[in-house]
């Protein structure tokens, strides 16, 4: 932790008194393109960390590969920039071994819904206490405009130049279909107040919080969310006291629907609706079993273990 200028003098600094500010979480300077939605997400994350007063040394951001997965480099917390599609297994290992750490996972749509789709489904089922962010821009950006599973049908890319052949995969429906899923939400980076509130709700949920963040790529898929960005009427806000309510947005996003996030059937119906873009918490259930708790075992000291091994060897003694 670094002492922030204007704060308490060094000698009187006590970790318990120290208040983290957004700047305490600033890592390397972000190198995303100007206008990239990831910048907004980075800011929301830093705001969340400060709001939650998470100690940087006890916070870990794990990512895969892609533009979005650079995010850990731009934070001053522990970070693990892994390999394509495999952020979730790494995060699983961290949580299993160190439940004292707060772990966030950052993935792109290629990472999460394509090459890492298997891990995604199983991680939802393990329901470890993780905030999992899918930064979904509907395109492969870092490798320069290839179709992803969430690319809209007909969208032209370098791998499908006559337009994407298939209807896009709906990440919300998949997430809501997984046994033991405990938190599923959708937000958009161009609505920063909603983004922040959703991440905060995700962080406060105990279990795996899956947040799909609609994210614009100004270079390769700027048109994907254009309608929703330009016309707030195309957005449907799901509001509920147990979900996300951002009153400052009421005047812009007038299309609001009360949705109880404990109602899984309703959540599935909403996830499947294609008339509008839904933002809000679709589902949450804090009572679902969490894998790191299910698997918790009493720790052993070195000496205890030696004695136990000796007893175990008796079973094999001749």
């Amino acid at each position, binding site marked *: *932790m670094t002492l922030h200028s204007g704060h308490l003098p060094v000698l009187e600094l006590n970790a318990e008194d120290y208040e983290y500010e957004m700047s305490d979480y600033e*890592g*390397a300077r972000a190198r995303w393109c100007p206008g990239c939605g990831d910048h907004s997400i980075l800011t929301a994350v830093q705001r969340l960390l400060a709001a939650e007063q998470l*100690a*940087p*040394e*006890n916070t*870990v*951001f*794990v990512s895969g*590969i892609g533009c979005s997965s650079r995010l*850990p*480099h731009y*934070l*001053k*917390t*522990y*970070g*693990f*920039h*892994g*390999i394509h599609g*495999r952020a*979730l*297994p*790494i*995060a*699983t*290992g*961290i*949580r*299993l*071994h*160190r439940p*004292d*750490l707060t772990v966030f996972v950052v993935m792109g749509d290629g990472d999460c819904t394509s090459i890492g789709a*298997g*891990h995604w*489904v*199983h991680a939802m089922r393990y329901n470890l206490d993780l905030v999992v962010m899918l930064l979904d821009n509907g395109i492969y950006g870092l490798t320069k405009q290839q179709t992803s599973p969430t690319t809209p049908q007909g969208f032209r890319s370098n791998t499908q130049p006559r337009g994407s052949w298939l209807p896009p995969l709906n990440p919300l429906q998949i997430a809501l279909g997984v046994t033991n899923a405990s938190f599923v939400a959708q937000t958009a980076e161009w609505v920063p107040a909603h983004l922040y509130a959703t991440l905060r709700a995700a962080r406060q949920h105990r279990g795996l919080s899956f947040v799909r963040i609609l994210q614009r790529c100004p270079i390769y898929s700027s048109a994907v969310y254009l309608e929703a960005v330009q016309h707030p009427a195309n957005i449907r806000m799901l509001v509920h006291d147990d979900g996300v309510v951002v009153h400052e947005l009421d005047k812009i996003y007038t299309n609001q629907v009360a949705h109880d996030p404990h109602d899984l059937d309703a959540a599935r119906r909403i996830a499947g609706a294609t008339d509008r873009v839904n933002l809000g918490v679709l589902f949450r259930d804090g009572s679902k079993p969490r894998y790191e708790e299910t*698997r918790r*075992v*009493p*720790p*052993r000291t*070195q*000496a205890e*273990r*030696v004695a*136990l*091994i*000796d007893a*175990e*060897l008796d079973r*094999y*003694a*001749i």
Partner: protein
Amino acid sequence: MHTETEARPTGEAGAAGAARRKLLSVAEHTIEIVSDAGEGAQKCGQIFGAVSAKMGNGVWTVEIIPAEIQPPPRVPDGASGYRIRIGSQPVTNWGDATTLAVAFNEQVLLARHRLDALAPDAVLLVEDKWATDEDPDIRAAWESAMAELSGREYRIVPVPMEQQCLTLVDNPRKGKNMFALGMLAYIYDRDMDRVREQIAYAFRKKSEEIYRSNVALLELGYAWAGEHLDFRIEVAPAPSSGALVVMNGNEALGLGAIASGMELCAMYPITPATSVSHYLSEVFERFGGIVHQAEDEIAAVGVAIGASYAGKVAFTITSGPGLALKTEFLGLAVMTEMPLVVVNVQRGGPSTGLPTKVEQSDLLAALFGQTGDAPHVIIAPATIEECFHVMVTARRIAEAFRAVVIVLSDANLATGVTPFARPKPDVRWQAEPLDLSPVPDGQKAYQWDPRTGLSPRVIPGRPGGMYTVTGLSHDEGSKVAYSSGVHQHSSAMRSRKLAVLQSLLSPPPVYGESKGDLLIVGWGSTKGAIEEAVDRARADGLQVSSTHLRFLSPLEPGLKKIFKRFRKVMTVEINYSDEPGEPFITDENRRRGQLSLLLRSSTLVDVDCWTRVPGEPLRPGSIVEAIRSQLHYLHHSPRGGNQS
């Protein structure tokens, strides 16, 4: 070699038959129980092996496993069973051929005959009910099998196993194995109290009634043998050598992992590695550890890497196809210098290959399978005892060198069972408790010592660290760096660690004379068979020695110096190599054994190889033959030898 005397009646039923019978005193004997799958031959063999070990014999046992779970009955392919080699000295391998077999039908016996598993003068005790079966096809099959078997000097003893069992139980299929165990206990004069004790242990999860029924069948077999067999076999116990334990190599790997203080095993089921996790799943939690069965092989290694990153070194266990899937993650672990232990219990390949059979053909895949330059450590335990200790060594190296350590075991060690010196667990074998102290000011993520490439590890939770590790090429601060020179330097730092590790190793000892005509070089599970072959060849006056490598990456030091003291150097391995003299095969295009390829490149010595992929462990006898033919060539060819 063996002596025949008149038997003194011993044991419970010893006096029963009272007839004069031969007592064969031998230094060793190899026993097999074969049946259709599911008839319990393996349990019978396991109990016999355990009792023999407890009575002080040297013992090595191997499973005979069919590829299918429930193959159709009475087909040679379905032979399932257990082979136990017992001796008056420690037994280090499965030996050459079976000298006494108990078969539940003639078809499985035929399978063993056709595989050349039976010694020419073997005693074969075979269930005889098939000879008079009501199905004429079965009777015909019996006749034709007997005709085929009669081509050898086997001594075939028909035994009415089922008929006998029916006097006690309704379903003889479920009891024949205990009857067979009783016969073996009589023949080899096993201590019946120990046998009963072992039965109680084997059926500890079953009811008292099942135990009693099994013991009754055991005693019936013992009594029947006492009345009807005219021979007994004596294999004196080995000289006592301190406290021993007996287990298979996979149990040893699991216990070794526990003793190393590792607390997380992430795995995905794959034969023949899975039984490590079966064992650990049963006991690990008592030791403060867990087995995480991941959704796939890739996730398994990812979870282990995540756990290692966050705390104590974790491990994953797999076999060849799984290792292939883990490849990309291994590269990440090397690049991020993440300590990690990967156990590969090798099987036959490529692809699904021979899933239940032994092979040593993943060495090059383990070493070179990763993309880019990915230096890491490879260790191969040579014995079941070493399967235990290798895990402690692997964990310590992984931690101290911030390195990936691949442990190459194989199906021979995995399923072989033998006694070994009881380990004395030590707190120093275990990982230290997590250090969450603040990182010293200015310490970088990879504070490489410029001479050694070593750097202190930092785990999350330590104030002042907050590094982001990455699979991208990076500098000391873990900053992504594309500037010229950074990748060169970081590659050198990662590679240097192997040279530093090698500087701490000793040259491998030479078994036999330190110079001579032929040096055999082996690795992994073949040590016992190779050294037995060397002993036999030396007893015949041949100038042959052997050396056995545990470290394959880095290679153990001083090899070239050792090799130069022999006229010829040859690896013996269970992997494929082209045979010289086969069509199209030349010295240049010949594809060689995997270790020989490594040794040739690192020593520039013309290391030859003799390799086989029979889907079974190497027999010492066949290695002796290979030695003979090499030495014959060496002595009779003007160009023989490679050191001139």
